[in-house]
């Protein structure tokens, strides 16, 4: 192709949006005399079909090889006009747009000023267009497999959807069982479905699905590569129990010398387990794990004369010599469903969580009410002889949410409703109980939420608007100091038990995931989505998606919906099998590159690396861009000392042309 620039300039009136402030005729005449301009035309709506046809015909008839459109913002119609160019057989990147609407006609009133500015913008666009180069959009293949990090309800749902569509799923869970926080809940608001009843069938489905490879008690160690081609390393921690031989019978746990003496994480340390344990009865996989921090054999190397678990295990599954295993595999997409931590109530010392046994958190109350919990579902205070049933129970909302003093300004979205649910369950189990809820606001926003809140109030739960300032003990009772802000009355209410509706927080180990995948955090420290509205499950790293509370506090329906969204986003990539990579990316002029590696350090995507090449008989280092990883920010180009690494469509030479026009008077 003859590459002498032949530029066409197309000035849009946009009805009167542009022509009101910019003299389009004068602008068109001005454009005609600019260097290399072959034709210049104006039209009422350039983006319309006839407008585009005008461009296409000129390309074919006049042999234009560059197009400048003076119209609205490139953020608006750049794609439209690129398609028009492609439709006429011209490379779509031979297009430059002069933004004479959003940044000219709409912000200026004086027509002579507007026209003068528009002339400058068009002139700069023409100057740049002369140097535009054709670009190719490359495609890379997508490995038909997904890595899902986190086996809570979000990870479970996403895994089932993707596996159901026929793609391979690697589900990696840190703890010995999948199920996550949802497995610890008793009932779920607002319908009061039993949490285990709706969750455990899904857990079993995950374990038995032929397309899902479940890796529990495992951690992702390393992820490298790019969209469609991630290489993953997972550490499968030693369980010290042979996974194949273990039948899940539980004799080992009964025989363990520490049986009933190790606090159970699942029961929020209200109950105990053994050193060899199944986190909870319905755990998936139903395989026992030895706690390496507790087991006498593993901590002291000695357990009586011989370890009783090993003696009792008929299949001989106990293996104290077991080592961690590293598993490597390749996936095309990644879903991060790492969930949340509950707020540590000890950080609000005024509520006495660390001082008084009968101040509990919502999740502890959940375990106390649950039939699979430490008390078999009885709400009691104290143990054994001293066991009493509380009569006056108070709930305090927004503990660790909507609270600048804790650094959590956000609303945790679930506490209002789980408080209502727990209050209902208390009334169900102890009908004569006085239940009070201290609140700032009640946010019952979801489907069926307001109705449920109404129902709970009708059942006799009293809602008192006020944020308690202090909880202390008097005559064996807990005293809540609070002002009822609806009638400005200071109160000192005496109760037997306080439940703190603790909020949701980003996980303490979130940093590990951030480092693995180079994710960003929003100001609330949850993982940042690519766009808060239009890309809520995507991340800035292509091929990596978010699901569930890792992205922000959510209830179960929202979590499931987002997990399905993340699954479908991953499926879009995998079903097509190919993904287009950006065209406006960086490239290296190897002839002038001196291999200093500045660009390698600058690149936030590790897209640039140094490679050895043979330059006229000498082995030298030069930079090379991985085209699938490069996102086209151009930071490397600004840092290069010799101008050897450049960003396509934003090359130094092109930008300097714009500067020369716009800087000149």
């Amino acid at each position, binding site marked *: 192709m003859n590459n002498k620039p032949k530029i066409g300039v197309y000035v849009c009136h946009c009805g009167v949006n542009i022509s009101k402030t910019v003299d389009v005729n004068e602008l068109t005449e001005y454009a005609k005399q600019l260097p290399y301009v072959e034709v210049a035309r104006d039209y009422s709506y350039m983006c319309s079909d006839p407008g585009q046809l005008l461009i296409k015909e000129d390309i074919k008839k006049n042999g234009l090889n560059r197009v400048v459109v003076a119209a609205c913002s490139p953020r608006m119609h750049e794609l439209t006009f690129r398609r028009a160019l492609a439709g006429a057989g011209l490379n779509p990147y031979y297009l430059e747009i002069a933004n004479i609407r959003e940044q000219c006609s709409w*912000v200026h009133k004086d027509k002579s000023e507007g026209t003068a500015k528009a002339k*400058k913008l068009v002139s700069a666009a023409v100057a740049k267009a002369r140097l535009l180069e054709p670009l190719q959009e490359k495609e890379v293949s997508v490995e038909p497999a997904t890595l899902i990090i986190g086996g809570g309800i979000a990870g479970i749902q996403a895994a089932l959807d993707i596996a159901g569509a026929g793609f391979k799923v690697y589900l990696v869970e840190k703890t010995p069982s999948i199920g996550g926080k949802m497995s610890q809940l008793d009932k779920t608001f607002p319908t009061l479905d039993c949490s285990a009843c709706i969750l455990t069938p899904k857990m079993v489905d995950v374990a038995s699905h032929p397309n899902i490879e479940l890796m529990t008690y495992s951690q992702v160690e390393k992820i490298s590569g790019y969209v469609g081609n991630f290489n993953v390393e997972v550490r499968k921690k030693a369980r010290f129990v042979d996974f194949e031989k273990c039948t899940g019978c539980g004799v080992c746990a009964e025989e363990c010398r520490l049986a009933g003496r190790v606090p159970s994480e699942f029961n929020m340390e209200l109950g105990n387990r053994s050193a060899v344990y199944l986190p909870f009865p319905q755990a998936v996989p139903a395989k026992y794990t030895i706690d390496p921090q507790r087991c006498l054999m593993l901590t002291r190397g000695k357990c009586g004369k011989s370890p009783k678990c090993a003696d009792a295990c008929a299949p001989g599954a106990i293996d104290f010599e077991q080592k961690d295993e590293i598993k490597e595999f390749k996936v095309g997409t990644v879903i991060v469903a790492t969930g949340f931590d509950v707020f540590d109530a000890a950080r609000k010392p005024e509520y006495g969580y660390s001082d008084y046994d009968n101040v509990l958190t919502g999740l502890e109350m959940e375990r106390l009410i649950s039939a699979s919990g430490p008390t078999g579902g009885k709400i009691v205070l104290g143990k054994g002889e001293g066991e009493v049933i509380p009569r006056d129970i108070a709930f305090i909302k927004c503990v660790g949410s909507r609270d600048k003093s804790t650094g959590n300004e956000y609303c945790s979205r679930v506490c209002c409703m789980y408080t209502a649910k727990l209050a209902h369950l208390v009334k169900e189990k102890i009908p004569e109980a006085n239940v009070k809820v201290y609140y700032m606001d009640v946010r019952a926003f979801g489907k069926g939420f307001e109705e449920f809140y109404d129902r709970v109030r009708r059942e006799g739960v009293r809602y008192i608007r006020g944020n308690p300032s202090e909880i202390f003990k008097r005559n064996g009772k807990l005293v809540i100091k609070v002002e009822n802000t609806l009638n400005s009355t200071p109160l000192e209410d005496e109760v037997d038990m306080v439940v703190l509706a603790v909020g949701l927080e980003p996980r303490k180990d979130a940093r590990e995931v951030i480092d693995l995948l180079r994710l960003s955090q929003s100001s609330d420290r949850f993982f940042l989505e690519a766009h808060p509205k239009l890309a809520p499950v995507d991340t800035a790293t292509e091929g990596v998606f978010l699901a569930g509370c890792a992205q922000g506090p959510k209830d179960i329906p929202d979590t499931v919906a987002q997990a399905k969204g993340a699954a479908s986003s991953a499926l879009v990539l995998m079903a097509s099998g190919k993904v287009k990579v950006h065209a406006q990316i960086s490239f290296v002029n190897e002839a002038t590159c001196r291999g200093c590696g500045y660009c390698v350090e600058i690149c936030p995507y590790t897209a640039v690396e140094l490679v050895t090449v043979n330059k006229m008989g000498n082995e030298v280092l030069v930079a090379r861009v991985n085209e699938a990883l490069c996102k086209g920010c*151009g930071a490397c180009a600004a840092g290069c000392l010799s101008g050897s690494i450049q960003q396509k469509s934003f090359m130094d030479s092109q*930008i300097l042309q714009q*500067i020369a026009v716009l800087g000149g008077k």
Partner: protein
Amino acid sequence: MSENLEPNVVAFLCNWCSYAGADLAGTSRIEYPPNLNVIRVMCSGRVNPLFVVNALQQGADGVLISGCHPGDCHYMEGNFYARRRFSVMKELLEYVGVDARRFNMSWVSASEGAKWKEVVSGVVDKAKEAGPFTEFRRNKIDW
């Protein structure tokens, strides 16, 4: 100092925040001075410090670089590079005798159309105060 009523400012805007913010100012019909002309780059991290010198050499009276708010960069860290490069750059320009009012940096997000107007007005006013810039002028060269 001579009377300079119409300063000429060259602005480098990142595509994702500041350019979108400037577009929003247009969509919201927020009027501002016409003395500032925009060059769109994908990220403020793309702006080579030499672009600033070049703009001044070509005859610009002021330069503005605007990106996403720190921490909000579409490319994670691009605006941090921009910030660091230009805090050094600013000192250098002052050292060689360029009025600090000619050189500006701002953070304008895609939702801050009104702030964009404030930024433009401020930058143009400062360039006005500083007067026409003649020191670095060099003959126009053909790239």
